[in-house]
């Protein structure tokens, strides 16, 4: 180790600059209200906050804790939504209007706007500050779409199989047969998680793929933790499977509601979708033990 010269460090707490705020667990897309609202508090002690008033109603939104991407209901314009910015919703002119679906990368620094009627994808990277957009035309609308962090790869599930696109517009097909039920890149990597009627798969490095079957059970949905340690999957029997990538162990959990889907909200926090969604159930893997927590249904007489 390089020996440093002896120096004095003074650490001064900027007392006047200490700040305390309330933690926001996540932002969620309120389809009915056509906007986003926060989950205020911590998992297990939280409530839905007020709808973010950004002056725009959206037809679809993809959220992260820091920002969200939405498509305006009025004109189909793509927006960058930053709740704590002065202009909470800033249009993304580089992205053509009319996108029908938005898919974010695991860290949120990249996204794909999918135009189902034109089989076109607008691939965005450098979010939220340095937005770069590439556009791709596909022969079909992908049934499933995944974006890797850093904007390196797109994974699209087309009728003839699973295809990978890179930034250089190269495209190749991964040798994976079957109808995909779920598709997601691992956080900060080029590894791709697949879920289909046969099981859960991990493809290491989509450029030089290495197939591995992780679970031999039909998978309906999947999501991965931000630190790439765990994968949460929903199987055909509506069971939640917590898969540890390190030791390949699986833990079964029975959700409190009949799940219809699964998505990652932030880090180790996942949302268990159900047809009723009242209350909203979360799966929190941040603690020593996985925990199901609900966010009380939103009612006008709540407070």
């Amino acid at each position, binding site marked *: 180790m390089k020996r440093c010269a002896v120096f004095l460090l003074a650490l001064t707490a900027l007392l006047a600059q200490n700040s*305390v705020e309330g933690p926001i667990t996540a932002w969620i897309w309120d389809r009915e209200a056509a906007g986003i609202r926060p989950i205020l508090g911590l998992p297990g*002690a939280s409530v839905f906050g007020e709808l973010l008033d950004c002056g725009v109603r959206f037809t679809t939104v993809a959220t992260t804790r820091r920002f969200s991407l939405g498509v305006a209901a009025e004109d189909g314009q793509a927006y960058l939504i930053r709740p704590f910015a002065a202009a909470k919703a800033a249009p993304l002119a580089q992205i053509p209007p009319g996108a029908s679906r938005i898919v974010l990368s695991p860290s949120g620094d990249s996204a794909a706007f999918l135009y189902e009627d034109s089989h076109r994808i607008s691939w965005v990277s450098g979010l939220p500050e340095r937005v770069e957009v590439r556009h791709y035309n596909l022969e079909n609308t992908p049934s499933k779409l995944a974006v890797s962090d850093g904007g390196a790869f797109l994974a699209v599930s087309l009728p003839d199989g699973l295809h990978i696109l890179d930034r250089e517009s190269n495209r190749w097909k991964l040798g994976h047969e079957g109808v995909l039920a779920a598709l997601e890149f691992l956080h900060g990597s080029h590894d791709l998680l697949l879920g289909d009627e046969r099981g859960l798969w991990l493809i290491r490095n989509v450029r030089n793929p290495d197939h591995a079957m992780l679970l031999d059970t039909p998978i309906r949905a999947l999501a991965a933790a931000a630190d790439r340690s765990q994968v949460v999957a929903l199987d055909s029997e509506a069971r939640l499977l917590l898969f540890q990538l390190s030791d390949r162990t699986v833990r079964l959990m029975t959700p409190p509601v009949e799940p219809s889907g699964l998505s990652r909200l932030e880090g180790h926090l996942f949302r268990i979708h159900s047809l009723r969604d009242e209350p909203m159930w979360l799966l929190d893997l941040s603690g020593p033990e996985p925990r199901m927590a609900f966010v009380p249904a939103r009612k006008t*007489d709540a407070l």
Partner: protein
Amino acid sequence: MRLRVAWLVLFYLCSQSSRAQVSPLNFITPATLPEAMVSSTYTVQLQASGGQPGYVFAAEDALPPGLSLSPAGLLSGRPLQAREDPPFSFTVRVTDCNGVAATACRPQSVTRRFTLVVVPALTITNPSLAEGAACQNYSQTMSATGGRSPYRWSASNLPPGLSMSSAGTISGMTAQSGQFNVRIQVEDSRERFATRDYVLTIQPLRITTTSLPGGVVGVAYNATLTSTGGSRLSWSVAGGSLPPGLGLSTTATGAGLVSGTPTTAGTFNTTYRVSDAAGCQATASLPIVIQQRLQITTSSINPAQVGASYTQTFTATGGTPPLAWSVTAGNLPPGLSLSTAGVLSGVPTTAGNYTFTITVRDGREQVDSRSFTLSVSVASLEITTESLAPGAVGRPYQQNLSATGGVTPYRWVALTALPPGLSFGADGVISGTPTQAGSFSVSFRVSDASNQTATRSYVLLVTGAFTITTPALSTGLVNANYNQTISTTGGRSPITFQVLSGSLPPGLSLSPTTGAITGVATQAGEFTFTIRAVDADQQMAERTFTITIQGQFRITTDALPTGEVGTTYNVTLAVTGGRSPFSWSVVEGALPSGLGLNPTTGVLSGVPGTAGRFTFTVQVVDAGGQTARQPLTVLIVARLTLETDALPRAVAGAFYTQTFQATGGEPPYRWSISGETPPGLSLDLTSGVLSGTPSRVGSYRFTVQVQDRANRSASRSLVLDVSSGLTISLENLPVATVGLDYRVSLTASGVTGALTWSISGSLPDGLTFNSATGVISGTPRASGAFPITISVRDASGASDSRSFSLQVNPLVLPAIVISPENVELAGQPAVSITFRAPAPATLTGTLTLSFTAEGGGDNPQVQFSSGGRTATFTIPAGQTQASFGASGLSLQVSNVAGVITLTTRLSTAAGVDVTPSPAPTRTLQIPRSAPVITAITARRSANALTVEVVGYSSTREVATAEVQFTAAPGSNVQGTSLTVPVTTAFSTWYQDSRSREFGSAFTLTLPFTVSGDASAITGVSVTLVNGAGRSTPRSANF
């Protein structure tokens, strides 16, 4: 036996020629035949020669008895008779030609006279063989008769060592003993034998000594052992051992000698052996008892006293009983003697020291002697009289003093003056007639012949004149034992008593010898009489007494009348005998509740409160302390009550019966009715049954009375409705329950045509009455008893009315349990409502929660999972678990300290509130706790560090943040630990209304500036502190 058979072989040469010259026939057997012996087989073949072949022999006169002659010339048989001189003689003829004349043969015959000597039978004459002894010379000579001597003897099976000479002598020496079966044979000169069997007995060598004498330790011992048989004997010990000090030897005469001086006492079993030089041996076990030496063990004797009985027993050890004791030297003290048993006894008469020798002799003449000296002394002189008998004035007195010890004669002297009238002699006698009463101290001295003296003092009491001292006699009771004794003083026994005048109470008597008045008085009253006492000197004393005999004191009340609950009870307990005032009490058991016993009057009174049978014991004490008790039992019956309070209606023309009911009192009951009863009905006065067929419609009011056997009565006024026939069928309306549907369809019997119903009175709120259908229906909303009258009329105009009381009961719900029963901070427990028993009806309910923070205010995060603070549920009838819908219900506790209250309200399906009062509630306490850090992130720039801490603090305050930075190895960092006061920052946050939506959660951002290379800081750990404690530290790396 060897038989000697004389053979006479006669060779007959038969000529083979047919026509030889015939020689003259002749006997060739000599005329003297061989000698025969009586009883011995004799055979001689007579021979002839010449003549023609075919000799035939025949005896012409008698042969010797026992012999016969065959035609062939064989003379044989066993002679029976001896004849020697002269011998037997008999003629025998022999004829040739077989005795038959024939052409070729002309018989010849010739005779010869033979002589035959028959000697007596050879016989051994010894009847037996002499007995011999082992290892001793034996000789026995045999003898025989008959036959012809000389004889030659032999024997077989003789004992080894013995032999038989040919001359007939058995001799020799054998070492064997026993019985031998010997066969003796004798042979005469003609080689004839005779044998005889004998038993030869040879006695063994035997020790004849059967016992040896005993010995004495230390005394020379000598005993001889003898034996029979054998020679050159030697003695030895074959078994056991001789007594120590003794030895065994053989004398010159062959006897055994045990000799020596024994050194040890005991019994010694020794087996002795005597051996003969020839090897014969004999043994015998003979014990020798060695006794200890006879020795006197008494070493000293007790001294004796003149005139005192003396006994001394002498003892000795050893020796052979019997022991005999004697005095062999010196003299015993006069008055003492020694028995042969060794007992020295008697009464010494002369003092002195006496030396004498005692000798003991045992049965074996052992003796031992010892000298003793017996000291005989004179006993101390002592006055033995313990006290002087009291005297009495005017009564002759005599008292003899006595003494022991010393040497008589005694001489007495009075050392003090005697009471006046008394004198004292030298013989020790106090005598005279006292003339003065008093207590006199006197002393006396006695002296003996040996000049010993002894003195003693006494108090001589002289009493006054003879009087009766008993002042009065006590009171007695009739039928009670009485015992009083008349006492006297001054008299001399014996004293006699008598009733001089008057009479004792009947039943009592006076003992003339003891003065005791005893018996059982049979009559009460006062009895006066005079007692006279007379002493041995005929002195008289008289006194008049009165004995009062009282009657027996007892409680005469032995039974109590029956009482009735609620009715005043009053009984006075009575006594007989005794003296007032009396004191009453209950000493056992308890009175019925409500009753008391007056302690002065004995009145038992009060108002009984409880029925039952009560047993107790009363006690009364009179003024004289006499006590009487009486167990009593009182029966308290329940109040007589006529229970029947209503009569079912009757129908005119239909048989009716109703039995009145009564309780309490004392059955049997008697019934009666007053007032107007429906015609056709009558009352059974004993059974209380009202029955019959009413003939007239109407409402009849009358009074029914019941009376018990104690004439207690109860009555009640009743109404009996007699209807026309149209009768409302329902006797009673079913009970309704608040909140539950209720429906009753009224019906009537005896109907003609359509019915019209009507109702008077108020139905419970929620119920309605349909006059067309007679249906009461609805859902009552309030509980209570609602009196109504329902009337009905049919097409014929007949009507009936009936009064009812519609009872509406509150809906009783089982206990309700609201869960959870306790909560944890930031928990989301499931909520349940459970009935402890199945719900009586389908119920709906609301569960409402409220929250009060510890520091006041609210926490909007505290909600149900369904959103808000109100949740509805249902619970089907018969179920115990409330349902909050398919999703269930959970409670978000959040993270602020305070109290959550859950309250339930319940309604029936009809919407009637049936919430119990108070409403079921659950209170959940969220405790104060230290802060909890849920996440920490650390960001580093060139010279700044930012630490972001996410967590919650249930107290809604945080005081400090303790920050510990971790430096890279090798770096020199100062001030890595900081305690940052954050009270203000948190206070600002928690006071902001926006913070309420977050519960107590927060994101704390701590910026730090770094002087120097911030990269030297690699990590940070944060601990938050609030008023309830410190958080668990959380760390992060930059």
